């Protein structure tokens, strides 16, 4: 079976700066794929090219077996989008937002009305049907945006930072819904800054930096391929000095960030034993996670 989303050598520059640089990506049906990367890595631009909203400078993209942007209109009939920033209609109620949005897909009013109850139920908004958008909480708005993206019963759903700015309860509810969608066989492509989100939801991850795909695989593969399995974080005023004297002896790799030292190790036992004798230092021993991989691949410096 053909992949649902396929990109080859995608390239896009703005004002001489290459934002996406030779990106290859292939996503199969029913897969949930996460695009990770620091701000400005080219995630949103990639999504916009795959949706056919902007034309690449070079390379080709296929969405649901249709070339985009050439046949973007036909392709988008079967696509749903959850944008990074809420763009619900503030003048409308919850139900009106769904009705008006469904019309853009050429759906008949009766057809949309028939779908609204199940969409509201999916978004846990049944009792908010006639509430105006400005009265909704951030989490409710996000869920309504998700319901709106499903109004046309799409095969593919694009989500640009779906849980940014939400509290933990709201995030968990969104995650649960996204998992239900993948169980229904929908294909999901999402961008996120949250490594726990990526680790929980995505079958496969693609890490972007400076417009280039620098690594991809399952969350487990990314961790196994890129980083030592154990991390010991060492804190304290003298941690910098300690790192200079001892860190290299006990760890395969270490990084100093302020008053914290991150030691990446295959076997943490000798290091932990040593640290137990250092009364001025505190430490935390944990398995390596995706955030460690991300920071290793994209560096610790701030991106603006």
């Amino acid at each position, binding site marked *: 079976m053909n992949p649902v989303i396929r990109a080859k050598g995608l390239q896009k520059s703005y004002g001489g700066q290459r934002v996406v640089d030779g990106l290859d990506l292939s996503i199969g049906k029913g897969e949930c794929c996460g695009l990770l990367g620091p701000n400005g890595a080219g995630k949103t631009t990639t999504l916009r090219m795959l949706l056919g909203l902007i034309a690449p400078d070079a390379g080709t993209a296929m969405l649901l077996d249709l070339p985009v942007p050439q046949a973007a209109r036909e392709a988008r009939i079967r696509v749903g989008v959850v944008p990074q920033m809420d*763009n619900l209609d503030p003048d409308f109620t919850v139900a009106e937002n769904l009705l008006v949005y469904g019309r853009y897909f050429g759906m008949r009013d009766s057809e949309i009305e028939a779908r609204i109850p199940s969409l509201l139920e999916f978004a846990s908004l049944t009792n908010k049907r006639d509430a105006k958008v400005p009265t909704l909480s951030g989490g409710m708005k996000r869920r309504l945006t998700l319901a709106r993206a499903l109004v046309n019963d799409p095969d593919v759903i694009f989500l640009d930072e779906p849980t940014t700015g939400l509290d933990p309860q709201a995030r968990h509810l969104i995650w649960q819904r996204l998992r239900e969608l993948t169980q229904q066989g929908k294909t999901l492509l999402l961008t996120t800054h949250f490594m726990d989100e990526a680790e929980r939801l995505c079958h496969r991850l693609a890490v972007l930096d400076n417009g280039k795909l620098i690594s991809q695989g399952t969350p487990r593969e990314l961790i196994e391929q890129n980083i030592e399995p154990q991390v010991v974080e060492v804190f304290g005023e003298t941690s910098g000095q300690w790192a200079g004297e001892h860190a290299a002896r006990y760890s395969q790799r270490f990084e100093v960030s302020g008053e914290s030292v991150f030691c990446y190790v295959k076997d943490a036992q000798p290091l932990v034993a040593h640290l137990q004798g250092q009364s001025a230092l505190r430490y935390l021993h944990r398995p390596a996670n995706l955030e460690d991989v991300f920071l290793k691949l994209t560096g610790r410096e701030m991106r603006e």
Partner: protein
Amino acid sequence: MNNRDFALPKLSLRFFPIWQRHWLVWKKIAAPSILGHLADPVIYMLGLGYGLGSLLPTMGGMSYMAFLAAGTVCYSTMNSASFEALYSGFARMHEQRTWEAILNTPVSLDDVVLSEILWAATKSLMSGAAVLAVIWVLGLSHSLMSLWMIPLALLIGLAFASLGLIMTALAPAYDFFMYYFTLVITPMMLLCGVFFPVTQLPESMQVVAGVLPLTHAIDLARPLMGGAIPPQALLHIGVLLAYTLVAFYVSLVLFRRRLSR
């Protein structure tokens, strides 16, 4: 720079659900909106009509109030389309991101821009019809020919909506629209024959007035209100249509460039 930006508009009926959206929003605020359509033009017409009209015996062969009535329909339709295309259009494009939401569906930018123009022209139609109703009630027009003012209001709306959208496409923020109103809309209101015949102006200013769209709108409106077929009607209609088509294309190119990021 991209050749796709300069492609001719590809129009489809998919603009209609967007027009429906704007209509649904408008229905929620219909009462204050109709009041807004009426208050400003009617106060101008009555204030100037009685105040100035009592000093002037006739103007252009009719009472000053009747003279002013035709100009008022035209400038109030110009204003409704301009405000809608600039302020409301900018809100939908930029602030509320309504366009962004729509563009994620199988609707294209060409459809969105077309729907903006048609919606702003719809507002002109409503405002023109409202002012026309007041004119009838006041007995300032007795001819059925004045019913042609309704399609004319739509045409004026199309022209000024398209012109206004050029500004919307270029605007960094709402403040920018002040330039358009002070440098384009207000001069037109004063130079194009709303309050006095263009022939009263010095020759050089008449030349300027002659290329402005509102002049052509008023040249059509005043005879129609008096019950006559406007001289050179096809020329005036042609000018308004030309403004519409050229401005629509220019605004579309500008929107494509602005939103292709």
